[in-house]
């Protein structure tokens, strides 16, 4: 096992998982001395009937002071301020966030304001600004991908100042993450596959990028195994409770894995495609992951090769010679993407040119690639990638990902020191 000279690991979130664990929320909250809670969610989650499942499960045993579903797709400081007022006015003393990343970010923002008794979120941006525990916060994720229920960051937009405020503190970690299979049972197939591939990418990048450590490594292996063993089944059989719980758990441990080890170029490029062309994050991840692993192979091929075990199982792993494992692992990821594409009637695209919007228009026209590459150079995650990337490198990689062709690694052979080339 790889042991770095120094490593840190921290996830203070208590995770509770199962098929009927929403019911345990009142007891968990009362242990934290909470008597009246506020549910923060969004319209989509409410319309899907998920809020009702939560309230039915808890309302007998804890008072619900407010249910607010006014969260926009990108969390917004005005909404945060508004919800904070409602929290105070209704005498709430804890929050249950039911939803995805933006709901949780909003809830984290509200929790800062009500705990610090301040009306200016700006004061708490940046690392180290929070110095003590906030009020109780329970996260109930409704997708199985981002792992944001175990991450210590929040991004909240300030439209008036045209700024995005970034918050980072261990105190932003929710106290409790509740993974209940009922919350993802109705997630449509293409969202299930996208979000699961986001989680798989968190794990694969955590395992192969620069800040890997023993805990992030094993969480990553276990997350990938849960995903490859369950994802296709769940797509074909959406009401598979066990499979749903496995995917939710995989996203959770993949979240713990990458939040303690950082991600690399797949996220760098993915963020940029999202910013320039508004392609959903999970779609970018599933398309780019094979390319990220190929690009870094001369540096981290050994680690990529070890991923063959959770991707393909022990038999394939032991039958494949060590030198062939990295390529085989990548082949398995491509193959999984193709199967997901087939199972969702093409709504899980395998290359950028196939990503279409609702009206069937191409979302990533080829002439946008230079702009994407330029944006990528400014993304923080680029520093954690094992191999350096300049504008030309990124553009070349993007072109392959656009057409869906395998990366031609020989294009880089003259530039980078392929010192491990022979051994791979």
């Amino acid at each position, binding site marked *: *096992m790889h*042991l*770095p*000279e*120094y*490593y*840190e*690991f*921290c*996830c*203070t*979130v*208590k*995770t*509770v*998982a*199962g*098929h*009927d*664990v929403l019911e345990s929320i009142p007891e968990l909250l009362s*242990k934290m*001395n909470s008597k009246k809670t506020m549910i923060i969610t969004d319209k989509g989650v409410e319309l899907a009937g998920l809020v009702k499942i939560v309230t039915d499960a808890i309302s007998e045993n804890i008072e619900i002071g407010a249910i607010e579903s006014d969260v926009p797709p990108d969390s917004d400081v005005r909404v945060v301020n508004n919800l904070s007022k409602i929290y105070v006015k209704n005498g709430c003393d804890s929050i249950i966030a039911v939803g995805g990343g933006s709901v949780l970010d909003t809830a984290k923002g509200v929790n800062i304001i009500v705990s610090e008794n301040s009306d200016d979120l700006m004061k708490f941006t940046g690392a*180290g600004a929070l*110095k*003590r*525990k906030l009020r109780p916060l329970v996260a109930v994720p409704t997708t199985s991908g981002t792992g944001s229920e175990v991450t210590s960051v929040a991004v909240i937009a300030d439209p008036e100042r045209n700024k995005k405020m970034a918050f980072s*503190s*261990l105190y932003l970690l929710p106290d409790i993450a509740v993974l209940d299979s009922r919350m993802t049972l109705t997630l449509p197939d293409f969202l299930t596959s996208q979000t699961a591939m986001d989680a798989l990418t968190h794990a694969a990048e955590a395992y192969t990028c620069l800040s890997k450590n*023993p*805990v992030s490594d*094993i*969480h990553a292996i*276990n*997350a990938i195994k*849960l995903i490859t063993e369950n994802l296709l089944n769940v797509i074909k059989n959406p009401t598979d409770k*066990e499979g749903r*719980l*496995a995917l939710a*758990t*995989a996203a*959770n*441990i993949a979240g713990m894995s990458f939040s303690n080890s950082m991600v690399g170029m797949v996220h760098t490029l993915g963020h940029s495609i999202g910013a320039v062309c508004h392609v959903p994050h999970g779609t970018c991840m599933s398309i780019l992951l094979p390319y990220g692993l190929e690009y870094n192979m001369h540096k981290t091929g050994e680690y990529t090769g*070890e991923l063959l*075990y959770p991707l393909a199982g*022990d*038999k394939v*792993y*032991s039958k494949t010679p060590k030198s062939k494992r990295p390529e085989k692992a990548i082949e398995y990821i491509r193959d999984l993407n193709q199967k997901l594409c087939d199972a969702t009637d093409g709504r899980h695209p395998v290359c950028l040119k196939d990503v279409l919007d609702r009206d069937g228009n191409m979302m990533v026209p080829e002439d946008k690639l230079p702009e994407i590459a330029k944006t990528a150079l400014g993304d923080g995650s680029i520093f954690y990638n094992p191999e350096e990337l300049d504008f030309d490198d990124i553009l070349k990689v993007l072109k392959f990902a656009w057409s869906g062709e395998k990366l031609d690694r020989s294009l880089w052979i003259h530039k980078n020191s392929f010192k491990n080339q022979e051994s791979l």
Partner: protein
Amino acid sequence: MLPESFNFMCPSKTGSGFRALDQLPSDLVAINASHPLIITDKYCSGKYTKTIENAFKCSEMTLGIYNGIKSNSGIETVSELAKIYNNNGFDSIIALGHGRIADIAKILNIVVSGKPDDLKELAGVDKITSPLKPFVYIPVLNSDGREATGDAYLDDEISFSSNFLMPNIVCIDPRIITEESPYKVINSAFRALTIASESYTEGDNPLSGAYEHIAIEFVMTNLKNVVENSYKEKKRFSKLNLDTTESKERICLVNASIMSGYIYSNKPQGISEKLGYAISKKCRVEPGIAMGIVLPYSLEYKANRKNYDLEKFMLPIAGLDIYCSTPAGQRFDSAIGQIRYLQNEFYSITSTEVPRTLEDAGLDESMLSEIAKEVACDDYHEATCFFILEHAFYGKPVLP
């Protein structure tokens, strides 16, 4: 397949490796602590406080040091420490060392975080309901992991158990993880191996799986080298050996112990663990060593009688490559074989100081039924406990 429901929590931040202590001042600031009181004993303060003071030199913090902990320290020490803590405006506690030191530090934390008279009322399980003062734990090589749990023992009558007692930060620094007697190291490592293995084979909790896996793998790959090196060191009369490989191996063992503490705080005790404690009360053997003796037999019992698929146990025991290349039907036996191999090696390396069987340990055979009676529970009836003990007494594998 996943269990119907499962959970896990670990409130501690773990920092491990090169110059870990240097991170401590800023980590303390992040949890609003600026004036920590270090609690330790004479032995550790003589050996390590210079290193810790140096790590804090660049910060503006002033440290207090109390080095009066003894193996029999009790409520008087807690009261004395509470006075020191309150009169000098300390705002956080650092425990440096193992066992008793951490117990006293945790109990002090209860006292200085609330009303001292509460102590008796807060005894028992989950009686503490809100966070205590910032608490840091700095382990040494023979820390057995109990220090990182939510348990604290004051005396035979009063003990505490609450997640709020777990450290906020565990700081594992190779400069503190120095030479220790092989017997003590094996004792701590076998305790970690037992807790992690029993948890790993008790169902598939993917949330604790990483900690279990790492604790098992770290003990299996590093313990033998650390033990052998400690004999070599004695011959060389070297006081402090910070050679990278050797210090990495020690760091791995302490990681394993600390992780076993995290696992322990999330699970009921396993049968080998319980038997180990009971055995150690009846003969001159430390609990961790006794657990290690019982472990292979109780796992074999589990594999045979409970129809668990324990083949996967070989993965953390032997590592990915060996696991995958071993045919499926051989994996569990081979994993158990590796534990036994290690135990037999230690018997010879330590010139029989570390026993392989309960008979080696000097346990009177007539005690077996008494121990079985004492430990029996719903999952493991008296007859079952006796069955496992009897096999561990003679070193006789439990056949399918």
